[in-house]
Each structure stands twice: as structure tokens, then as C-alpha cells.
């Protein structure tokens, strides 16, 4: 009996040799998503990612709220990187409404974004460590993350969901002793980062396990449209902060970290090295920042975008985040599309896991810098 199945549904053929594993959503190594993995012995023959367990319809919700009301809920997809996911939205709305941002606010935004990038990468690194069975690498970054959370708390008043960036600048000015405190903590953090190198990245067992596994070539990285650390680990020198500098990134002194190997080890190392660059950016921005001045251009109440559209992108901890905002003379955006790095890197998962050993699955999966909540939006 053959029934015509509706599009989007399919029947599955079963093979005796092949075992289907549901990695997730209640698997300790999956996050809020499911990987349907078929294994033949220890080798993965196919992988079908099934995200959507935390789909919240942020894009739909944004169509019902005005430009200011959209701020807090749009940062929810990645609360650990909330400044970076709000950044392109603010840039886009500023372009739509034609708002100029004060110079000091631009620097503060960059500092907030870089602090938040460190917070995110540390969280990611912690989970990467525990996925590979390295419990110390879970505890250390999770503890050092507090440094930046405290700084962000001093800046914005909230520990995780800051909603600090707003169209037109930042919500409030820095506290009085912020600069000195920030420099002190960043200096301490740079010292700690070097210890991570000793215990984790130069660990022979880690290298044996991740080097040469899940190789993504440069051509494939471009063809699959990957972004962020995955792209840079494959030897493509692309960072939105360098290529399309927003706010004051062009004045600041930093480098793009690129590695050529394209394996799990390189993918795990790129975000780590980027934290050094983030520290450099923070220090440089604190030096170059105007010491006083306005931090927020006051918006008109309930502002309306023209009959226009805008696409702005920034570099987040997981790659480029692009906001496509369509407005139609209403206080609410007509359509907001968030193109996030996690979602764009998801396509690598079936590609990279095919033919890998099951033991490589956590390293490849988490090496993609994939944040399920962000990918689902």
C-alpha cells in the first residue's frame, strides 16, 4: 500500500546494519536540538539535524511591536551574547530612521559588544570542554566569565540580558570607575587565558582527538556559506568587523584570527584566540574613547520607518548576524529577518559528520559554534 505523503513528510527505510540514534533533545550532548544520526558500527553514515525545539518566532513577534519594544525580546535568542545580537538591529533601525549616534556611545557599544563576545566564548568554551570530558575546562571559563558579567552588570544593570544597546546609542552611561576596573579585570583575564592554553589547547590527548577530524576545506567552507570561527578556521580571512567596519571598529587595533587546517582543533582554537583580540579591542577602545559626552540620541516617541528596507550585519561570537528589516511607514517593522551564524553553520553538520566516528560527534558538533536557541530564533 503506498500512500501519497504530503510534502515535508517522508517514510524511512530501515537497514539491519544501520542503527538510528536520536541525539537529543534530551541527550546530554545535544543542546536544545536533535541530531538524527545513523551509525554503522562506530561510523556515522548520515546525520539529519532537526532544530526547532526552541523556536519562539522572534521574527513574528517583532512584527507586532514597535522599534523600541523590540529591543528586549530580540536579544533572547542568545542571552550570553545579547549585545551582539542587538547590535545589527540597532544599526539597522538607525539607518532606517536616520539617527546619528554620539561618538562616545559608539565606543561604549564596541566595549559592550566585545565584553559580551568574551562572555559568550567563555560559555561556549566551558561546554566544549565538558563535551570532550575535560571538567576543569568547564569550571575555569565558567568562573572567569563572571569577570565580564560583573563588568556588564556595572554597565547595564543586568547580569545576562542587558538590553544595553538601543537605537541611537546605549541605554546609560558608564559608571564612574569603570575604566580602571575594566582594565584591571581584562589584564587578569589575559593572564588566565594563557593558563587555558596549557591545560587545554596544548593537551596531547585533546590534540590527538581533535586534530584531523571533521576537516572542512576552504572551498567547502565558502560553498556552504559558513561564517564566523568555522569560516576562519578553514583559512578564509573574513570578519565583518574588518570587512564592513561598523561604528568605530575601523579606528581600533586588532587582527583577524585565521587558521588554515579546517579541523576540529582549529575550530576550537579560533574563538579562544579571538578573546585575546577582544581584550585588545577593549583596551584600545577605552583609550580612544571620548571621556565625556552624550551617549544616546533621543528618539522620537514611537518612531516610524519609511517605506524602506535595510540589511545590516555585525560579527558576533558565532559569526555574522544579519538583520533584514522591512518597514512600511508604520511604527512596527513590517518584517524582521534575523540571519544568524548558528543557523548558517548548521548546514555543516550533516556534511562534516558523515563518515566521522561517533566519538568525534561532540567535538565536531560543538566546534561549529552552534547555539541551538539562536539558530531557532
Amino acid at each position, binding site marked *: 500500500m503506498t500512500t501519497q505523503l504530503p510534502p515535508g513528510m517522508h517514510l524511512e527505510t530501515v537497514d539491519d546494519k544501520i542503527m538510528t540514534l536520536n541525539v537529543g533533545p534530551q*541527550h546530554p*550532548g545535544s543542546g536544545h536540538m536533535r541530531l538524527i544520526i545513523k551509525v554503522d558500527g562506530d561510523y556515522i553514515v548520515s546525520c539529519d539535524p532537526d532544530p526547532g525545539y526552541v523556536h519562539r518566532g522572534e521574527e513574528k513577534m517583532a512584527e507586532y511591536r514597535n522599534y523600541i519594544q523590540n529591543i528586549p525580546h530580540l536579544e533572547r535568542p542568545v542571552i550570553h551574547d545579547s549585545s551582539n545580537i542587538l547590535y545589527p538591529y540597532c544599526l539597522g533601525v538607525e539607518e532606517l530612521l536616520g539617527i546619528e549616534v554620539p561618538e562616545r556611545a559608539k565606543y561604549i557599544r564596541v566595549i559592550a559588544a566585545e565584553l559580551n563576545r568574551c562572555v559568550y566564548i567563555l560559555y561556549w568554551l566551558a561546554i566544549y570542554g565538558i563535551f570532550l570530558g575535560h571538567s576543569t575546562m568547564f569550571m*575555569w571559563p565558567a568562573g572567569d566569565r563572571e569577570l565580564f558579567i560583573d563588568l556588564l552588570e556595572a554597565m547595564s544593570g543586568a547580569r545576562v540580558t542587558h538590553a544595553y544597546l538601543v537605537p541611537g546609542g546605549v541605554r546609560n552611561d558608564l559608571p564612574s570607575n569603570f575604566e580602571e576596573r575594566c582594565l584591571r579585570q581584562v589584564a587578569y583575564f589575559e593572564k588566565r587565558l594563557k593558563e587555558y592554553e596549557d591545560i587545554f589547547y596544548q593537551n596531547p590527548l585533546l590534540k590527538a582527538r581533535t586534530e584531523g577530524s571533521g576537516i572542512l576545506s576552504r572551498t567547502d567552507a565558502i560553498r556552504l556559506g559558513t561564517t564566523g570561527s568555522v569560516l576562519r578556521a578553514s583559512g578564509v580571512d573574513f570578519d565583518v568587523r574588518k570587512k564592513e567596519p561598523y561604528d568605530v571598529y575601523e579606528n581600533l587595533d586588532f587582527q583577524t584570527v585565521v587558521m588554515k587546517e579546517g579541523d576540529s582543533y582549529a575550530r576550537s582554537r579560533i574563538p579562544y584566540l579571538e578573546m585575546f583580540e577582544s581584550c585588545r579591542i577593549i583596551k584600545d577602545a577605552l583609550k580612544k574613547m571620548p571621556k565625556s559626552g552624550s551617549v544616546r540620541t533621543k528618539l522620537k516617541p514611537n518612531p516610524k520607518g519609511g517605506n524602506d528596507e535595510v540589511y545590516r550585519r555585525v560579527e558576533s561570537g558565532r559569526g555574522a548576524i544579519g538583520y533584514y528589516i522591512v518597514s512600511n511607514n508604520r511604527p512596527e517593522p513590517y518584517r524582521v529577518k534575523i540571519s544568524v551564524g548558528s543557523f548558517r553553520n548548521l548546514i555543516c553538520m550533516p556534511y562534516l559528520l558523515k563518515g566521522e*566516528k561517533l566519538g*568525534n560527534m*561532540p567535538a565536531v558538533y560543538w566546534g561549529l559554534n552552534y547555539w541551538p536557541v539562536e539558530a531557532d530564533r
Partner: protein
Amino acid sequence: MSTIAPQFRLSRFIASLFDLIFWVLLIFSLVGLPIVFIILFYIKLPIINGQLMTPYLSMTWMADPSRTLPIVKNFIHTTIFRVMVFPGFGFAALLAAATIFVERKFLAKIQLRVGPLYCGKIEGILQLMGDGFKLMSKEIIIPAKADKPIFWMGPLLFVGAAGAFVSLIPVAPGWVVANPNVGLLAVFAVIGFFPIIAVLTAWAANSKWTFIGGLRALHQMVAFEIPLILSLLGVVILSGSLNLSQIVESQQHFWWITFVPIGAIVFFITIFAELERIPFDLPEAESEIVAGWLTEFSGMMYGLIQLGTYLKLYAFAGLFVVLFLGGWNGPMVWPPFPQDIITNGITIGPVTAKFPGLPLFDQQMLNGTLWFVIKTVGVILLILLPRGVFPRVRMDIALHTGWYKLIGLAFINIFIALGLLYAGVLGPGGLLQ
């Protein structure tokens, strides 16, 4: 008026207590006492201080200290005491429990946290008890399609095998539960049981994760058992005995680790694989296969597996000490029992009490135990350390390590031992013996 028992009356409560006492006394005197006497009739009673240990005397031991100690001493030398308390299960379980606590605090210090802190007021020393009670009070869930008898049997078999392993470890001269002449072969035989138990329970649980975990456990343990056995042959060749107590006695002057260090290193690495500890905790690799072959265990069944694992940890550390670190051998540091307590008794003011039967343990035994425990705890700490430092390896790397590198090293170790033996340096009739 209590909300828990709204019908509570104090008078009825007291009455029920008396009721209870009455029935207990009645049943004990009518049923319990006759049973005790019937049992005692068939048991061969020991002779203490020239008197036969009659039930009457045994009932009065609490009143007369001069009878107490001989009875206790007599009990200490029974087999049941050895199995249950001292070199056997109780001692090992106590050390295992201490190990769990030390592991948690030790790992916490490495990871810049505090570990258990609140339970028990002082640095969370009662945390373990709390965890034990939690595990005991939890529901045991059996998967619907599991092979139930084998699934139930799994944890019991595991603890049983671990206990059998513990029983072979000599702690002090003469203090060992089982002392067969082929002690080391018995150890290999017991170790050989663990992969079978893992595969049985993994298959019986009828889950994909346990199945993969069980197969991993099987592959890994078999791959590491052969280097384990080979690495210990060097010691057997040099000491000329398979009896663990004799191996310890052969190390009175020098430890075997000084002559066969490669064997010690290989054995130390295989311990991790056999114990499924990081970096070889592949059968329980959390992020890959949930909890491996332990996935479906819950409540006290899981608790038993944990107990067995830590008993195994103690036994392996003890075996390492026995084979390579000289077992109970060590300088005499335990003070001798004061002679005038034995001859004159204790004088407090006008009262002089004499305790026949002292000392309970002789000096050699206490000193041996002390050294054994110190060495074992050191080895256990070394076994715990990599958990904070290493990530998990991959299955193919683990198997490659076991089948190629460790076996090669173990053979080199055997050649070194044979060379030392035939060069006449060591062994029976050697230069240093």
C-alpha cells in the same frame, strides 16, 4: 493539635509504647531466646581464659570487662570478621567512601571551586551520606522491555566481583580474606568478569545507548586486560611467586617498581581503562552515548554500581601497592603497646583495672596496615588526578593505545625482568636477594 496526626493523644501514644515493649519482650523470651540457645547448642564455642564460652558467660560479657576483650579478640580472628570488617568489605567500603569525598574536594580544588560545603557543617563531610540516602530513597525504574532478571543481577554481580577482587588484597601480614597460592591468577580471573557483566547488563537493558556503551566497555577492557596481565608478569618472574602475600614479602628490601618501572607505568595506565575513568571513560562517555552502559540504572542500582566502581578503585590501588610499592613493608613507626598496661593494668586513683587479652592487634599488623593505607591513598590520589587534567580520548585512540603501545611496553618489561633474572641480579638465588 498537630496537622500531621490530627487524632493524636499523648496517653494513647504512651500506651502504645508500653504495648510495643510488652510484645517485644514476650516474643523475645518465648521465641528469640529458645532460638539463641538452640543455635548455640550446635556451634562450637571457643574457650576463653580456660573457660568454655557458654551462653551464660557470653551474656555477661558486658558486665565483666575481663571477659569482653578476649571475646572481641576471638571474634577478630574469625573468618567472618575478615570478610565483613577488616581487610574485607567494611574496610574497603570505608576507604571507597573516603575516596569519593576526597575526589570531590580534590577535583574542586583543581577547578577553583569549593566542592561539597554545607552538608555536615564542616566542609560538607556528610554530603556522601546524603547522597547515599538520596540514592536509596529513589525509585528504581526498570525499562519495560528489559530482560529483568539479568538487569537486576547486573549491579549485584558487579559489587560481588568487586568484593571478590578486594578479598584478594593482603593488607597486613596474615591479614587477607583469601590467600590462594595463585593469588595473581585469581585477580586476573576476577577482572575478566567485569566486561561480561557490563555487556550482560547493557544487553539486558534493551536500549541503544547501553548497547553501544556495553560494546565499548567490552572492547576497551579486553584491549587493556592483556597489557595488564603482561605488565604484571615481570613482578611474578622476579619474585617467583603468584601468591600476593609472598610477593609483598619479597619486597622487604626494595620495591619492584625500582626494577620494573615500565611494568608499573603500563599497569597504572591500564587501571584507568579498567576503572572507566577519564581519560578512558568511553563506556560512560556522557556527551556521546548519554551514560553508556549505566544509562538505564536508577536509584540504588546505580548506587551499587558506583560502590562497586570505587571498591574496584581501592582494589586496583591496593594491587599496585602490593605488587610494586612493597605492600605493607615500611619502617616501624607504630609505637609498641605499653607493657605495663598488660602487666599492671591501668591505675586511676584507688582503682586498678586489669584487662586480660590486650593488645587486640599486634604491632606488626598495625604498622603494616598504616603503611599500606598510606601508600594506597597516595596511589588513589594519583588515579584521581587525571580527571581534572585530561579530556576523554576517542575509541580508536584508546584501542590503539591498548593493543599496540601498551602491549609492546609490557613485553619490553618482561624482557627486562628476564634479563635481570638470568643475569643473576635478582630472583631466587640472585645477588640482591
